[in-house]
């Protein structure tokens, strides 16, 4: 199963571990700094903070602006994530199971929104939303966010479907499961890690989206907009506190997803 035995006892394995430790340090350093910063008692950011306190958490948790924007962002991401997962997975299935000769062309089209600069996509969406009178509402944010999250689901699920053994699905169908239930009971559980990766990407991209949402909002403010407008004025430790809070929430959600994915279809089960 693992090549631990063949690599394990050797020098390169230790070398690999050393190398990865450095990479992990690089990945986590800014986050650690950020968490420490959020506990500063000063009114500006500096490292290490001269004094510590929970002043900025108090400020954030008692500020209606922050709470509203956090909840708005969470709601949008919570609506967008499952929708994007469903639509993206459907599309990935269509690309995988559809005619082979159309696959590459269609796939390129389906992931194209990912590469369009958001500011121009933002304007286009805004003009549409104005015409339909749905700007500054969920009816605009959700389709807009879906457009940029679905490509990520298509990519991660599509990659997984490519290696999926189709005979499993056929076995289920021969046992009396219709196409839908065969996919539901067999394919989806097996490609679960990809679904989870797609969900994580969708959630995070929606939660962090700034420019398109900036165009679409008037009175409502999502968290990135709130942070950006705060930052445009002053780099205050309150954003470190907000970030730590959202980091805690999203980290929890992500950890849950990773854990669930691992438990049910970890490598013990899949060769």
């Amino acid at each position: 199963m693992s090549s631990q035995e063949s690599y394990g006892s050797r020098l390169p394995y230790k070398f690999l571990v050393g190398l990865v430790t450095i990479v992990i340090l690089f990945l986590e350093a800014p986050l650690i700094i950020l968490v420490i910063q959020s506990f500063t008692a000063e009114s500006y950011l500096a490292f290490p903070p001269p004094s510590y306190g929970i002043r900025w958490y108090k400020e954030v948790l008692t500020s209606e602006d922050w709470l509203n924007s956090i909840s708005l962002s969470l709601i949008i991401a919570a609506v967008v994530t499952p929708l994007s997962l469903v639509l993206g997975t459907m599309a990935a299935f269509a690309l995988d199971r559809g005619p082979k000769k159309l696959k590459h062309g269609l796939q390129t089209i389906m992931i194209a929104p990912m590469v369009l600069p958001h500011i121009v996509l933002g304007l286009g969406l805004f003009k549409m939303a104005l015409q339909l009178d749905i700007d500054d509402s969920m009816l605009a944010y959700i389709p807009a966010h879906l457009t940029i999250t679905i490509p990520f689901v298509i990519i991660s699920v599509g990659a997984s479907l490519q290696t999926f053994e189709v005979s499993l699905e056929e076995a289920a169908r021969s046992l009396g499961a219709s196409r839908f239930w065969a996919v539901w009971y067999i394919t989806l559980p097996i490609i679960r890690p990809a679904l989870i990766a797609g969900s994580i990407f969708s959630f995070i991209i929606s939660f962090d989206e700034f420019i398109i949402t900036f165009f679409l909002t008037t009175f409502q403010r999502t968290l990135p907009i709130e942070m950006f407008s705060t930052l445009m004025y002053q780099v205050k430790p309150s954003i470190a506190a907000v970030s730590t809070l959202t980091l805690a929430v999203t980290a929890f959600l992500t950890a849950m997803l990773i854990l669930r994915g691992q438990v049910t279809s970890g490598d013990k089960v899949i060769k």
Partner: protein
Amino acid sequence: MKKIDKKNNNLNRRTVIKSALGAGALMSTPYFFVKANAASDPKVLNMYNFDGSLGEFYTKHWYNPFIEKFDIKMNHIKLKGSRVPLEKVQAQINAGKPETDVMPMHQDQVIFAQRNNLAMEVDASAIPEFANYYDKGVTKYGPKMVLWCYGLAYNTELVKPAPTSWKVLWDPEYAGKVAVNEGLKDQTLQMVNLAFKGSPYPVDAQTFKHLSDLRPSLVALWSGGADAEQLFRNGEIVMTPFWNGRVTKLRGEGLPLKFATPKEGFFVRSSVYGIPRGAANPELAHEWLNWVIGAGPQKKMVEYGYGTFNKQVEHTAEEAANVIVSDPEVMKYAVSEDFNQILDNGKEWTDMWNKWKSS
């Protein structure tokens, strides 16, 4: 339906628990599927506001007193930065739905608005307070307000003697400790011209040659006031061209900063508070403009640190030092800018600027 009403916000904040409950309640209501701004109501004014202490100032001194006095409601739209996003507002106005009733425009934006017919001409008869305003402060699109100066901010402990010329930026002693403004690159270019040519125009190869000389000294090109502030706080820079209001505020927070008006000239800018074409409530917007340019609200702005065109406002010595514009001696060095040129050469200057950056 959720309206963001600032009236009882910042002053009496709710407790943590209440807010958390509120957030929970918010999630369970279907408010977000409905647009937040309902059809126009003659008693509701939609206004832009800023973040931070300036935003608090607006709420406290320019918005809430008006709300009380005229018994109306007001919705705030928080700006990201100090500029109205005309790239967005243009689309709204063309669709007949500007998001606000009053919009503060930078002077180049006024020209853009004029050319694209984005702002309505104000009815001067509905603004009798213009009588107390300097003529320079009156435009056909509305009054100019919030005067600010663009000079040199420096760290008093690390820059000695106090600078009097833009050329100090080129001083090798401060190499690697200065920055210039990317966000308002037109002002940076004009500043370079002032330092070496005595006049802000024309922006040409010469200008960029001087900028190239400065290049090794530059730590960064900052985009907004917050960036520059962070550069000062982190000790990355000791001086930069900057605006006076922010220096006043930072000095108040204990930073050893001072604002200098170089002898080659400095810039004074203000914003025109106009009414977008198709605004939902132009009458009330006129009322507010008339009220806000009065001596009372204008005096408050002077106390905060920005200048006014209202003749009746008296300045204390400290206020005068902060706002700069009330001192005729200093104002002799103020340079007038050609905003048509700034707007029309925007692309060309940006191209030259980008070439300079990537050379």
